[in-house]
């Protein structure tokens, strides 16, 4: 009985090591100059959207293009570019689509105004209904 238990533990340990080795292989390995730079890298790659998979950030996606974009973010950080410069660099090539925080301009105005418009429509109906009830 004891022997069986030990074996089970051994198998578990074996499995966890295999799995952790695998997950390590799936993430790219970057060497950062300092913790701030690493922090910035994560911030930027979470704010950029994968053009291929569309509803993932490049941090979450393993599509080829996301890997390329992460490498580019790293490369630009190493060159001393700041967050905004890097995001602008990506937008210049991949369009506003690529940013989860697009700038306000005539092409993106609908993104920013839609919630407000919907809210106004909703409150209009709500107020009207209340009036009806008061009557």
């Amino acid at each position, binding site marked *: 009985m004891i022997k069986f238990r030990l074996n089970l533990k051994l198998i578990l340990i074996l499995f966890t090591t295999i799995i952790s080795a695998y997950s390590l292989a799936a993430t790219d390995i970057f060497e950062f100059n300092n913790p701030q730079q690493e922090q910035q890298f994560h911030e930027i790659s979470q704010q950029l959207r994968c*053009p291929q998979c569309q509803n993932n950030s490049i941090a979450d996606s393993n599509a080829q*293009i996301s890997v390329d974009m992460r490498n580019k973010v790293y490369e630009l950080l190493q060159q001393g570019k700041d967050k905004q410069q890097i995001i602008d660099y990506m937008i210049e*090539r991949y*369009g*506003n689509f690529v940013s989860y925080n697009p700038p306000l301009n005539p092409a993106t105005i609908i993104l920013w105004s839609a919630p407000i418009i919907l809210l106004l429509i909703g409150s209009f109906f709500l107020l009207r209904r209340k009036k009806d009830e008061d009557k």
Partner: protein
Amino acid sequence: MSKKLMLPLVIFILICMMFLYQLYRNNQGENITDLESAMVGKNIPEFKLASLFNPDETEQIEITNHNMPAQAYLLNVWGSWCPACFDEHPFMLELNKKGVLLIGMNYKDDRLKARQWLANLGNPYKQVIFDPKGSLGFDLGVYGAPETFFINKNGKIIYRHVGVINAENWANKLNKIWQEAQ
């Protein structure tokens, strides 16, 4: 029926109509995952890459943005690893026969495999830029293959098509853009 009950019904029908309209457009070939290119209206970015047909590594035929054709052409992004490019290839040969000037961009590929591919299937391209690391691809905002850029006689990118070009979408839409590029 009272007016109060009518309103949700009307909204419901409107939403259904919106969905139907979008389904219809998808059916007409609109692909919602196609992104508008940020490069439209701009020139080809600066680049300096080798030709796919370099005899070997020591003898480089260099292609830069300055020696691209001075007339309208299509820049077709392809790779021998890309099954959709294989589907597209026969129509590329046909376009070449029709007199459309095609420049290939071999994207993230192996030189020998790419040359073998063209040797087996035929080469519709006047020149092929070899971009193994995808550096020009990145500057062009390429996010997959095949993609095709329409470049007009002044060297400006006027359109980017994502996905396969075939006889159908050429006749329906792309031929017109090609005529505009001239």
